[in-house]
């Protein structure tokens, strides 16, 4: 096999660029900005060969790199991607560009550190999706939290300490249990942290259940599954726009990715045994949280709750153990990334002008910002799962996967068609429609060219995915089929 290091580039290029950006002086704003944008764009460009050279028919991992890291414990710097991780790497690298552009004029304090934090975070997150060694995965998985803490802590709102403690506590338990599970598997796999070897192990059901629960403790928090979701609304409210974008678009997905990469293939029997629990939690998330979203007064909290609700579809789809369910959950993750980015950027656009996110402070915005209103309409419809937008693809496929398993799962999930439209359109009505309600709204100015640019990019993505999802599904079939085989095998 030819030597290639695209995966290493995708991790280390943004981290190096981030370090360079951190070194720039506060006075030379322009240099900081151009260097950050350059770093983000270059980091995205190096991931494109992954798509171009990806073989959608090959089974197993591609672009594999392996270098011994800590020989004493047989820990390796071991990277590789399949059809599932491919899309998350592309997505993450792309989102970083949007985050840089979104912070362009808005961030006034510690600009260099802000941009650096996002670039470094981007590289570390790619590491999560590319690691094939459990310790390497663990390091990346935990290390991504540092930039996120900094982002919330330094550029966050007044309640950031509370939000961070919550996040911290949730994560603490999960991480330790996951690490313990890794160590157990290390011995079982004959002193190896190779994730693929973990997947080939035959473990007894009680052991599988314990390991499943240990993973669950970590991934459920990250994926903000009900009832481990309450850190998310608080973290969102306190985080600056860029932080919210990364939290919703990427961080949540690392948890769901964990279920796909670890829980299902390593503990398939436990996954089946406990699927009732997982399905229940997912459906509670879809419906309960949609109702909670309905009554939120803060726009960001509303979108945060809607994220939890949409993530309910992701976990529901995963535990259907069929092609439609799992492909649907991957599609839903990608779509939710687009939609939540769009929503948080739009709230950012309003917040930058009015410095409030209270729904009641707005009304009649369409009179002053018609172009913005049109953008937000489209994003709201994508969030409500309108066919033709990306939002439809994932939910539709998951519902089809669910109906094959049990009609009532589909009934409960499909009820989101009503509630998902209710909370987002009710918010839209109160913020955008009506007469201009106060003098602040009367002074609003419509989106600038920079804002139009990043919103238009997401519009293109939302439509591209909504009208031609085949582009994505054709590359994930092989990996999903393999995953289904692994997760249906009885191991004990």
């Amino acid at each position, binding site marked *: 096999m030819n030597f290639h290091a695209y995966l290493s580039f995708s991790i280390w290029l943004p981290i190096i660029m981030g370090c360079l950006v951190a070194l720039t002086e506060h006075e030379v704003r322009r240099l900081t900005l151009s260097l950050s944008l350059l770093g983000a764009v270059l980091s995205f460009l190096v991931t494109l060969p992954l798509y171009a050279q990806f073989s959608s028919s090959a089974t197993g991992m591609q672009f594999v790199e392996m270098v011994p890291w800590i020989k004493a414990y047989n820990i390796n710097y071991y990277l590789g991607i399949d059809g599932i991780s491919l899309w998350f790497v592309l997505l993450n690298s792309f989102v970083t560009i949007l985050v840089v552009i979104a912070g362009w004029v808005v961030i006034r304090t510690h600009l260099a550190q802000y941009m650096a934090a996002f670039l470094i975070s981007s590289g570390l997150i790619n590491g999560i999706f590319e690691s094939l060694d459990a310790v390497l995965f663990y390091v990346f998985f*935990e290390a991504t939290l*540092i930039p996120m*803490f*900094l982002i919330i802590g330094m550029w966050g709102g007044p309640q950031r300490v509370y939000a*961070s403690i*919550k996040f911290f*506590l949730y994560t*603490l338990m999960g*991480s*330790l249990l996951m*690490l*313990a599970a890794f*160590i157990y598997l290390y*011995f079982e796999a004959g002193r190896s942290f190779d994730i693929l070897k973990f997947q080939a192990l035959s473990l007894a059901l009680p052991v599988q259940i314990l390991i499943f629960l240990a993973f669950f403790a970590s991934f459920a928090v990250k994926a903000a599954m009900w*009832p481990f979701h*309450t*850190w998310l609304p608080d973290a969102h409210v306190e985080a600056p726009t860029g932080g919210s974008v990364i939290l919703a678009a990427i961080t949540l997905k690392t948890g769901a990715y964990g279920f796909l990469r670890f829980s299902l293939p390593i503990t398939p029997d436990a996954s089946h045994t406990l699927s009732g629990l997982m399905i229940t939690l997912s459906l509670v998330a879809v419906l*309960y949280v949609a*109702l*909670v*979203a*309905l*009554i*939120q007064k803060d726009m960001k909290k509303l979108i945060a709750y809607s994220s939890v609700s949409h993530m309910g579809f992701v976990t529901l789809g995963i535990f259907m153990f069929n*092609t*439609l369910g799992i*492909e*649907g959950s991957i599609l839903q993750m990608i779509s939710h990334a687009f939609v939540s980015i769009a929503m948080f950027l739009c709230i950012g656009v309003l917040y930058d002008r009015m410095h409030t996110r209270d729904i009641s402070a707005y009304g*009649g915005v*369409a*009179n002053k910002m018609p172009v913005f209103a049109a953008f937000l309409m489209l994003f709201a*419809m994508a969030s409500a799962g*309108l*066919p*033709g937008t990306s939002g439809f693809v994932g939910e*539709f*496929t998951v*519902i089809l996967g669910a*109906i*094959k398993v049990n*009609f*009532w799962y*589909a*009934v409960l999930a*499909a009820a989101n*068609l*009503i509630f998902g*439209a*209710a909370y987002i*359109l009710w918010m839209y*009505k109160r913020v*955008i*429609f*009506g007469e201009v309600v106060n003098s602040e709204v009367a002074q609003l100015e419509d989106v600038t060219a920079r804002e139009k640019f990043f919103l238009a990019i997401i519009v293109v993505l939302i439509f591209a995915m909504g009208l*031609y*999802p*085949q582009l994505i*599904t*054709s590359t994930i*079939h092989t990996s999903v089929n393999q995953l289904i085989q692994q997760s249906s095998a009885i191991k004990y």
Partner: protein
Amino acid sequence: MSMTSLYLIVPMAPLVGALLAGLLGKTLGKTISHTVTIIGVLVSFIASLAIAQDVFAGHLFNGNLYTWMTAGDLSFHVGFLIDPLTVTMMLVVTFVSLMVHIYTVGYMHDDPGYQRFFSYISLFTFAMLMLVMSNNFLQLFFGWEAVGLVSYLLIGFWFQRSTAVFANLKAFLVNRVGDFGFLLGIGLILANFHSLDYATVFSMVPQVMHNEITLISGHSWSLMTVICILLFIGAMGKSAQMPLHVWLPDSMEGPTPISALIHAATMVTAGIFMVSRMSPLFEVSDTARSVILVIGASTALFMAFLGVIQYDIKRVVAYSTLSQLGYMTVALGASAYPVAIFHLGTHAFFKALLFLAAGSVIHAMHHEQDMRHMGGLRKYLPITYITALIGSLALCGIPPFAGFFSKDLIIDAVSGSHLYGAGYAQFAVTAGVFVTAFYTFRMFFMTFHGKERMDHHTKEHLHESPLVITLPLILLAIPSLLAGYLLIGPMIMGDYFGTSIVIDPQHSVLHHIREEFTNPTGFMVNGLMALPLWLAVSGIVLAAVLYLFMPRIPEKIKAQSGVIYTILSNNYYFDWFNDRVLSRGTVSLGKKLWRYGDVTLIDGTMVMGTARTISRFANRLRHLQSGYIYHYAFIMIFGVFVLMSLWFIRG
């Protein structure tokens, strides 16, 4: 040019128009914007004519354009099915849309959202065409929701009005309730037929029709009945059947041209079209068709009653639309799908005509919609008057106007049905004829005859609308007069629909019509002696007596009919129930879940309880200041510590 590209042109031409007017509207200006959209729809109409000619020469088409998605062994496509049913809908949609586009030039000429309006109605035309031309359930659902979106945008077109943005949210959500059922129906079809292509699904019906589904353990239902009822719930939302009808009267908050196009002629008939398209499925479930029959009949009669007490001219026409959709639904229940489509077509013409005529009146009256402030308008609006008269006679079913043929056929069809509920349906649609005639001519007389009740200023400015408004009225009046007579021959007596509609010979209620009548004149002569016509005439006479000759009587009747009037004026309390119970109940449930679930239980007890315990413990451990990185480093080190310890324990 190949036929496939011609098919493609039909939906794409309006889409191009919509994009140009929507994205570049400000640059292009008003005139270019309306020109490109009108040309788009005109092209679409002409192409539809050419396709119709081709179809009736025997060239049907069923093919895919591209593969939308594959998942597992399933694939989803975007494609067209071109057959007589499709072209009928294409012609109705593009013709009415063209009329409405032209009309809008006059009606909306001084509205600041002029270009946006044209963009929306062209976008609607695109979505509606994709819906009717689809060859599979997925694309049907696409079009289904897309027309719902445009309807939402257009009801809330005047977004500063709080009533308009209330109405559009309501319309969207009520339609979503229908779509919820529809989507589950589609899901069950995929799960049991392993395809969403019409042709594949229909061909598999014989294998699947006896399957059962267990929804609650121990009870099983016929799978086909469950699927058909779920699909019909979708139709109930879009075609506004009770109890999902509540959004349609409120949708009158939108500008009048869209009331004609979307909320009378085309979108609301999507449900009727869908059930006809699915006739191979619905034919195997008597239970589902009984449900359809009863719901349609109830809508036909009870919504007609509400038309009687309205004063807003548009609301009268709106309730009349609800009632007429009920008639079409009854025809579906009676397995008379061709009759339902026939009535759909004639209704599209005369109801669009009535709405546009109402719009012409409203335009002349400076946006006054209350009929109590109108009267005697025939002098001022002669063209509107004549065309509205044609529309009203067609709606009442007076021969030889279009509505006579299609409505009489529905009454005939239901009398031949043996389903459970057919007797009730027959009573409802027959009685409905009288009520329809009464409210229609009540509206007609209150508007065009009697005392001139408008204020002095309005009266001075009264004048007939410009040609862009009257021309569509005239062009719609022609089919309202002739379509019934001309089309009953081929559509009902001939084999117009061919294979596009499947009717089980045992349910066929039309064969006696085919045996009895060979030409439209014979049908008409027979109708002159029948009960429905005399009910219609009595309705008109009663309206004339009450509103032309003794205009004081109605107020007295209203004062005397306390309870009934209260029930009617509250729309049978549907809105009350939805608002007080469903919508407030949901919001209050959301508040409770948030307060007691998230805030108290999860955060208060679980998270912060743990936090307090841990911080008590941690306070003893830490002397350094608290920082997040510090916390974090602590765990990392702790983790490594555990790792090392285990390493040593295992040796």
